[in-house]
């Protein structure tokens, strides 16, 4: 790893002003040489340091966000939760309100990575981490997402790649917390260098490759995610997150799913079904949601919905098995949510 400068500002605006670019932009180049003048924001540093050690990033300066006060709190606001971006995954998984009312998020956070990483990794960093695609993470492959002109996955080793929305690039979004947040219609508060704030839904925050193949989200240089908002769920809402990995300890999912159901008198009033590790962004299974909405929950209906969750899927040469796993996962999650 190359030497770098370190600064640890006390305020959001000074941190935002110091950042010259985003991690994604710093990895884009014509010939596979990362930006060596970049000043980059760092939260937990889990993914950032990985990328630096692999030579995929070569920042001149890191701007530490961990010393900025107030970003590590979870507050109740208007019945919902306002979560600071520096809240760690283990903090999130252990928080009583999160566990009671946003179970899918607690489960996603609590089963990520390893206990050591969960103690360090922040929710903000988790949402902004780069995909695990082994071509993206290889210096030997100057892929589309890094400014090259080839997505090696299409005719390569694509067993862990996307089955939806992979036009131009077949990454899957790695954040299981993002899968859960989309199911809760969560929103992000983003602060810019001049202190301006904008709000965006988590769903709209993430981008598909056809919109921009070089980045996974709409974050611009100098912007910082300053809060994650969870709106108050109805009393009847029930949620859970399930994932399926090759190994149970410290592994990335082959497939994950968050479901949130509002049920009254056995009728599904509202359903959110979001698939992770399925597409370049958290994938909302709208056909499955529609199949459930307004219907009386039962096993046959849930089977139909689980099949509908795969509508539009276009598996690659080596990842057709994911369809089977997703259908199973969604069905099991819905059955469990309906029974809870």
């Amino acid at each position, binding site marked *: 790893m*190359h*030497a770098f400068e370190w600064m640890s500002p006390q305020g959001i605006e000074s941190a935002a002003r110091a950042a010259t670019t985003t991690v994604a932009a710093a990895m884009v180049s014509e010939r596979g040489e990362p930006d060596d003048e970049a000043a980059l924001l760092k939260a937990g540093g889990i993914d950032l340091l990985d990328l630096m050690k692999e030579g995929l990033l070569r920042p001149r300066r890191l701007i530490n966000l961990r010393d900025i006060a107030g970003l590590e709190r979870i507050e109740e606001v208007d019945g919902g939760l306002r979560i600071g971006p520096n809240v760690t995954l283990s903090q999130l998984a252990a928080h009583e309100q999160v566990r009671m009312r946003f179970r899918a998020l607690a489960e996603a956070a609590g089963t990520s990575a390893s206990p050591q990483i969960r103690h360090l990794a922040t929710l903000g960093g988790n949402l902004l981490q780069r995909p*695990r695609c*082994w*071509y993206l993470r*290889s210096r*030997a*492959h100057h892929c589309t997402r890094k400014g090259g002109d080839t997505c*090696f996955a299409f*005719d*390569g*080793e694509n*067993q862990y790649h996307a089955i939806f929305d992979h036009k131009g690039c077949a990454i899957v979004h790695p954040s299981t917390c993002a899968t859960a947040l989309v199911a809760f219609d969560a929103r992000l508060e983003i602060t810019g260098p001049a202190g301006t704030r904008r709000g965006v839904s988590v769903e709209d925050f993430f981008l598909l490759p056809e919109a921009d193949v070089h980045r996974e989200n709409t974050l611009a240089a100098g912007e910082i995610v300053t809060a994650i908002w969870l709106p108050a769920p109805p009393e009847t809402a029930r949620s859970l997150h399930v994932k*399926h990995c*090759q*190994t*149970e*300890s*410290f*592994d*990335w999912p*082959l497939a994950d799913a968050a479901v949130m159901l509002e049920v009254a008198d056995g009728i599904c009033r509202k359903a959110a079904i979001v698939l992770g590790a399925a597409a370049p962004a958290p994938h909302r299974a709208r056909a499955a949601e529609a199949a459930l909405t307004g219907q009386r929950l039962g096993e046959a209906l849930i089977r139909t919905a689980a099949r509908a969750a795969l509508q539009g899927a276009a*598996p690659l040469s*080596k*990842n*057709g*098995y994911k*369809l*089977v*796993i997703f259908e*199973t*996962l969604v069905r099991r999650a819905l059955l469990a949510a309906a029974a809870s």
Partner: protein
Amino acid sequence: MSDKIGVRSLPAGIAGVSVGQIERRVGADEAPALAPNARLRCIGQPTARINGHAKVTGQATYTVDVKLPGMLHARILRSPYPHARILALDTGPAECAPGVRAVHVIEHPIGRAIEIDAAPQSGPAGRELRYVGDPIAAIAAITPAAAQAALERIRIEYQPLPFVIDIEAARKADAPRVFDHTVRTEVFGGPATQLPQHGNVHGPDASASRGDAAAGLAGAEVIVEGEFRTQVQTHCCLEPHALVADWRDEGLTVYISTQFTAGIRAELAAALGLPLARVRVVVDAMGGGFGSKSRIGNDVLAAVALSRAALAPVRLVLARDEEQIDSGNRPATVQHIRAGARRDGTLTAVAIEAYGTAGVALGAGVGNFAQSIYDCRDFSLEQSDVFINAGPGCAMRAPGNVPGAFAYEQIIDELAERLALDPLALRERIDSSPVRREERRIGAERFGWSRRQPPGSAPGVHKRGLGMAQSHWPALVHTNCACEVRILRDGSVEVRSSVQDIGTGIGTVLAQVVAEELGLTPGEIVVRIGDTNFPAGPPSYGSRTTASLTPPARNAAYQALRKLLAAIAPTLDTTPEKLTMRNGRINTADGRHSIDFREAARRLSTEQIGAVASRSDDYGGFGRRTGDFAFARNALGGVQFAEVTVDTETGRVRLERVLAVHDCGRPINPRQIESQVHGGILQGISYALFEERILDAHTGHMLNANLEQYRILRSREAPAIEVHVLENYQGNSATDAYGIAEPAIIATAPAIANAVYNAIGVRMRTLPMTPAAVLSALGRLPQRS
């Protein structure tokens, strides 16, 4: 010392079945007959490892912890191409880079197949690089970062060449050639015959064939047949390859994580033209080797050359991606097997055609297992190495036998089903080993084998299955092996050998053996190992360390004690033959004097006495001997039972339980043996379900050259494991101990595969058994348009 031969009566048989006595003619310097474990104080007792506390508290010194004054740090430049020729190489700019002290160009790399008649190449230009990661040059600098930065200053011009990374593609006549010339055939422990080579295919080697398999198959009443595929597994030692080379005028000292200090010394002396006495090899704690740290590699020679050039110690530690790409691996195989039998279960004929790839190296054969384990008159084996542009394979825990058993033990399982025989009953018919018979009996009872249901009959989505498979491995003895025991004047005792503790605890075993002989406790024995300044010990590979070293350790203790008795007899007004030792006390025959060991040592007129003993031949003789090692007459067995659940909707295989019954002659430290069997089983599960090197067809790069995407079993994948170890006395040496490391892994993958078959009724012929592979086998994958 006397070379008289005496007759001893030694225990023989399996404890719990029947232990009798066997008469053996042995040398007079051999320690007296050792009773069965039940009557011993130290040997056979579960004993905590002597360096366990140091390891778990971070106090143990691994090679990466060695820091010498003025030490430099080395890094290696590696080929970014899977196949290329070096057109020009200029190290000049690197030599004057900041902090650089030496640059070494690797012109003649080792550890791969050697072309017989290639034109001699002088200088780096013209050298062919044959895999991504092929080492080119090394730099020593004052910091690792300075060395790394300087690598980028080496100017190098490559001519990329066509490459092939797939075993099937490489076999085709028009495939790019990995080697232009025929390579020299390497033979392990047998006569060398140059094998044919066509394109990338070297072989076949049919030397293990016997009888007439074609005729045997023609006459068989039942034939089963299958093609099996196994993947490349990497060693994944948690401690990477590491060394500090310290070249000085008076000689070379190398601190190195190695499985064979004495072997590294011999290889370095030969490579550098140094006398053995001027080379010293040292290792303290080790974090695994599994075969990959057996010999010197390009990293070792580079670090030594850099130290010699810089006149300073040089430290070289491989990074994890270098470990994955260029520190050896278990070769991939494709095995086609036909087995014929009579209706009564008699195995009449077996024909195996196997292709394996160790990348740019030889040694991908699978035959030893099938040719040795079961009675079969007509047996043919044709195995070939296939070259591909990938890092060289090397020995990995039970080389050949692990992929071989995965295929063969499934074929036997299939045969049992076709014959409507229980898999255990078929083995009763074809397996002549009395040890495995007992292991099957014990295992079946403890495992509850009678619960097993017909294949695929389990109801529901999560299907449970039971399976079993057997191990077979030669019991090896390193005959070039010695041990010293010293008794000091204050009663302290040292045992000394160059043997290294790869992590399995040989030091603790030595302490137990010496303590038993001297009437002391293991904690009272000072263990000095891992240094070629001590008598040359055996390697830690081939499951031979304990078998080789414990007999000389016990004999040295016995001989040192005899010297002590001789030295102190006059002080007790008696003669040595009238002194006896019991429970740590030395008594005169007339009962008038009784002194303890310490008091006896205090009566020495010199600071110390000691004895060095070498490994004597097994009392019953060896099966065969080759160079510095020999095959004992009895092989090692082992039977493993696995219980799995398969989620038929996600394809995940979960190990619920593994029960293993093994033998290793006389067990010395049951706790460490159990630990080693656990390790073998866990590594075997990891091989069966998770591990696989994945190479990219576009670039030849390994895509998962890390421990994240190269999946390996971790704690939550570990099943309940039960280990039962037989005491199998054979009256063969002063300790009668043999090895366990390799038998512990051989049976695991096929036992799992047979259990998966039992669960789902579909046979998994390809490794690893991933969710994708299981769903595919179940016919659940969507049809592609």
